[in-house]
């Protein structure tokens, strides 16, 4: 009896593997952050799914207060299994057609709880981990900052940028005048993930430097005219008129 179950399970697994090997799944996750800490998450998927089956995607953010599938999907809902959250999508699947679902997450990020470092920077981390058994062929995650914020620098990423693979897996975005980052990766199996850690800060710059340098430049032109005199000191190696 046990042996029969094992063989049955193995056949099912192999069949599943055969299907998933032939299928494709591309996921594009766009997270638009607001200053309140809320975020609008838009998931766009391009997937081949057998008719009548549902597509299960990992969900690693806090609970959304609304889920709005577009008219290409028949249903979208969150499901909790073993403490993990999944987004379940149903549709008349067609591998060529992108499907989109929008979710509003009221407490996505606690800006006030993030530690502010020098120059008003805060460090933000975005992680995506595939907690489903289905392989994700291509993943792209965009994080768009609230208006008035800019990305200062990217601290780290998974996958990493290396000398052997010098094309950065991330890029700096501008979306309707808002700054953000984007991380891309491919072939995410069960447990694989993508991560980007970046620093951001308010975009406004103090005018002090502007005023100080304009003043310094003007004063220099006024009080350093003697530099033009022939007996003024030149650069170390700059003498002897060239013939």
């Amino acid at each position, binding site marked *: 009896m046990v042996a029969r179950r094992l063989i049955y399970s193995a056949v099912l697994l192999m069949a599943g593997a055969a299907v998933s090997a032939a299928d494709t799944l591309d996921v594009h996750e766009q997270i638009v952050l607001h200053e309140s800490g809320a975020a609008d998450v838009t998931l766009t998927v391009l997937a081949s799914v057998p008719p009548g089956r549902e597509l299960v995607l990992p969900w690693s953010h806090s609970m959304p207060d609304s889920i709005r599938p577009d008219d290409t999907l028949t249903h979208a809902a969150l499901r909790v299994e073993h403490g993990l959250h999944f987004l379940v999508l149903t549709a008349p699947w067609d591998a060529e057609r992108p499907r989109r679902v929008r979710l509003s997450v009221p407490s996505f990020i606690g800006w006030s709880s993030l530690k502010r470092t*020098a*120059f008003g*920077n805060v460090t933000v981390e975005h992680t995506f981990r595939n907690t489903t058994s289905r392989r994700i062929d291509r993943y792209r995650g965009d994080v768009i900052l609230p208006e008035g914020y*800019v*990305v*200062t*620098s*990217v601290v780290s990423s998974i996958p990493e940028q290396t*000398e*052997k693979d*010098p*094309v*950065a897996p991330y*890029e*700096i*975005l*501008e979306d309707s005048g808002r*700054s953000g980052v984007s991380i891309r990766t491919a072939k995410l199996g069960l447990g694989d993930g993508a991560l980007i850690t970046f*620093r951001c*800060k308010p*975009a406004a*710059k103090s005018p002090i*430097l*502007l005023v100080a*340098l*304009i003043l*310094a*430049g*003007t004063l*220099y*032109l006024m009080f*350093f*005219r003697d*530099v*033009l*005199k*022939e*007996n*003024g*000191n*030149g*650069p*170390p*190696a*700059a*003498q*002897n*008129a*060239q*013939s």
Partner: protein
Amino acid sequence: MTERALEDLLDLDRHKLSVEHKRKATATERWMKYLGVPVGFAVFLMLYYMPTPAGLTAGGQAIIASFALALIWWIAEPVPTYVTSLVLMTLLIFLDGWDSKNVLGVLGFDVIWLNVLAFILSSVLIKTNLAKRIALSLVVRFGYSVRPMLLSFVLLQLCLAPLIPATAARAVMTLPIMLVVGAIYGATPGQPNNVGRNLFLQNLLGINIFSSGFMTGSTANLIALAFIANMAGTKVYYTDWMFANLPIAMLAMFVAWIIGPTLLFRVRPADAHPQISGGMNALQEQLRKMGGMSPQEKKGALIFGLVVFLWVTDRFHMQWFGFEIDAVMAAMIGAIITLLPKIGILKWNEADIPWHLMIFSAGAYAGGLALNDSGAAAWVVRKIFVAFNFGTDVSFWTVYVIVIALMMYSHFVFTSKTMRTIILIPFIIVLAQQLGFNPVALALPAAFTIDWVIGLPISAKPNVILFTTGQYSVLDNLKYGIVIATIGVILLTVAGFTWFRVLGLTPAF
């Protein structure tokens, strides 16, 4: 000139590199110095206060603004180059471009260590009179006139290039000889002339571009070839590289040898011979008076020979020792022996280390690395390529010329050959693939320009070392670099139409 004066002239202890030489500037240089400060500020403010462009981080924007200011100041020299470097390092930190740990850590980089150790070894050649002996022998044989003297240095650099890949090592080996020969032609750090400018800048060119003649000439060449192998699937062999590019490097050097003393820094007939009373006879007499090699000279030659031996045999170290002694560690071994009591030659105070140069180098490297780390350099390159808006119907030759020119002139803003290669070569390969061209036909000729780092003292290690001599200004270096880089673009373009086609590297029309 009395005999005493000749001896003084050849005594390089009197022309210490660690001492900064202040002199009168030309009218152009005075104007550049005067306007350099406000122009630098204006460019900085414009770049820093403009809205952060799409695709660039705020840190990257601050770095570009700071580096632009430094570049203007390094060229115009309103303040000494090392002060500009300190300003740049401060701006990088205070404007949140690069953190202080990274910026200050640059002073511990292997390139700085190599510079320090190289100057210790260079001091050995000077203190033991070995440099004087080699230089006098060279001048007595070839130095009756400026042309053959310059040609002898071309040949010297050509011979050293395949043996010693480290360009800084070659610079330090030949620097003391250049100093003595320069002095014989009346070019001292306190009073440089056009013979000195030609001598030092031509050597700077030779040290750098002869590296481009050999695949193993620099690490960056090998990195470029790894990209070509991995991304374009084509393996390039040592002889492929050498047959294709060594003739170009030699031709460029020949052109530079011709136009240097006639067009760029004209040498008057009166200056074209050794500037010492008694002429060649006095020099022959001086060499004769030196007699046989002293024990100190022999010891110096032995120590320097050991270091050179380690530099030349680096590819066999793994086999011999189980690990590689790189150029820095070989120089360190030499420096240790040199400074050992009783066994060594130098006391610490006798080592002529120009620390202002180290600060200058550190600033330049910090700026360059910050540009790379922040993605700002890649962003600028991407913007330039996008600006050309290549369509699929663009001709190969249009793209070829633009790629060669971009790769060549990019060395004016990159301070590291490796970074320049890592950013540009994959870009060029992808561009070629997208346009349907053979990637090797674009990427390999582009890789041939990697070692043409001749435009500024910040462009490469040997440039910084030779700049300390005070024999030429940043402006002289820039003028020489722009002209020679343009000649390089022309030569590589003509080679693309002819020589590279014969070799099957570039396509037929």
